[in-house]
């Protein structure tokens, strides 16, 4: 499908800037503006938001004029696996404990690689779990449960 957008990267960059800029300005309306001499909390962010939105618009206009390469493919599977691995770590950490959280983050993220294989990954996960328990909990004394209340501890 032919589109008038000749520089997709700039176009989407512009969209992102525009959204963040406008959001900053609109949310910033809830804060007191004050005056230049006595700036309220809304003053500086409103200026910045306006500038950012302006840059976003320029980037978008430019994307119709100046050509550029297409955006590379998004590897959604990798993106999802890595994000889920990190999110799951956060979710498990407090209530299930460091041990299951480490196993989760290592196993799930490792699965994203095309070179993934079960046995070495399992060994690495167990090794890292032991390492982090010894170093972070025992040696550095960070207040992290090794096994949490969800597992009956």
């Amino acid at each position: 499908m032919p589109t008038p957008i000749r520089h997709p990267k700039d176009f989407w960059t512009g969209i992102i800037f525009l959204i963040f800029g406008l959001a900053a300005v609109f949310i910033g309306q809830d804060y007191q503006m004050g005056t230049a001499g006595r700036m309220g909390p809304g003053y500086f962010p409103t200026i910045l938001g306006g500038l950012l939105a302006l840059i976003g618009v320029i980037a978008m206009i430019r994307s119709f004029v100046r050509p550029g390469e297409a955006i590379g493919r998004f590897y959604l599977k990798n993106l999802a696996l890595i994000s889920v691995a990190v999110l799951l770590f956060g979710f498990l950490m407090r209530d299930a404990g460091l041990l299951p959280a480490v196993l989760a983050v290592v196993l799930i993220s490792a699965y994203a690689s095309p070179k993934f294989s079960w046995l070495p990954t399992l060994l690495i996960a167990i090794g890292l779990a032991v390492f982090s328990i010894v170093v972070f909990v025992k040696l550095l004394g960070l207040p992290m449960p090794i096994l949490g209340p969800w597992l009956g501890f």
Partner: protein
Amino acid sequence: MDIFANLALGLDTAFTLTNLMYCLIGVFVGTAVGVLPGLGPVATIAMLLPATFGLPPISALIMLAGIYYGAQYGGSTTAILVNLPGESSSVVTAIDGYQMARQGHAGKALATAAIGSFFAGTVATVLLALFAPPLADVALKFGPAEYFSLMVLGLVASVVLASGSLLNAIGMVILGLLLGLVGTDVNSGAARYTFDMPQLADGINFVIVAMGMFGIGEIIRNLEHDESRSLLMKKVSGLMLSKDDFKRIIAPVLRGTILGSALGILPGGGAMLASFASYSIEKKVSKNSAQFGKGAIEGVAAPESANNAGAQTSFIPMLTLGIPSNPVMALMIGAMIIQGIQPGPAVMTEQPALFWGLIVSMWIGNLFLVVLNLPMIGIWVKMIMVPYHRLYPAILMFCAIGVFSLNNSEFDVYLMALFGVFGYICAKLDLEPAPMLLGFIIGPMMEEYLRRALLLSHSDPMVFVTRPISATMLALAAIALAVVMSPTLRRKREEAFHEDD
């Protein structure tokens, strides 16, 4: 002379057993990180920051500085041995260094890099000791208007030197400034952009942003092209340089050192620019310019000296003005704030032991690099071969544990994942994360200085142009922008950043 008393104080501070140990750990970890695939200094420093919060400030800063120049050095090792520059600043080292390795002179290339770096580090340390105090004296007279303009100049410089679109880089700076404002406003107590979430009341910790954008975003991107590394030789030998080699590298090392020191001081400058510039100059002035690209020892000596000199002198604006010239310095400033030190010219007078201890420790760290790294090359060669797909789950784990331990909060971990996704999107759109991180750290300070400047001038915005120092800095910023926008220079700039392909 004052400087000797100062350096003596620095020696006293740096030469305690603990500080020597932290310096050694920093240099060792830094080199390891520079050698391992896919881990940059920003992500590493962010990862290790939580571990330094419990240390005394001076030990923490000594260790972080060690990581920085250690990583620089490790990056050159991979550049020479496997043609994969570990850091952007060693991209040009790979050109001739790798050719030397292919001709069987890997040892010589590594030794040249080590000697050049050490010499440059020594000179830059002396420069730091000489120039930092007068600069800080000047800076002590700065009012809020001068500081605001200085920050504008610093941010503009970081934008001018970023690769890719200028406009988009400015956008990233502003986005960073905005993100830096999230949290409770110090003046009014109003909660800004917190969406009523108590976890955001104190703002977003810079470690989360750095780890998300530079750590996790990078991992997702690296997964797309996980190539295995092939090493030319399993053993590196011939680490000694002949008399002839020494003669050949003296001039390039000197030129690289001078150029690197000068470029490092510039806001936005630092190691990467220094190495690129010195390589292209050396290529023009060298007697052996025909050999460049085919394994010229000068092509290793010059950029390696330059990038180390630049890495050291980039501490000057950070320590004297409190202005970061690159993302690593931004993290150092963040670390100082967490340690309860307000970065700026007052650091030198209020914390002389910290200031001079850090400077002396940099020289010690450079010595460690030479003394330890050449004999330990066998270990680094093994680390080069660690496959990335075995490594990155561990990096993720360290990031997650590090961020969780900041406040014992799972919210921070979720936020880091979000910044990771955003970092990946930015990479796909060719948006550089470095200007955003600088903006993020500077944001709150910049607002504060703007406020104070306009309060003092009774809301007269002319204050920024009527005060001479402030006006000069704004003019410099405007000139820098204008120059970069001129079409010829624009092409040159694009070429400079694409020398590697």
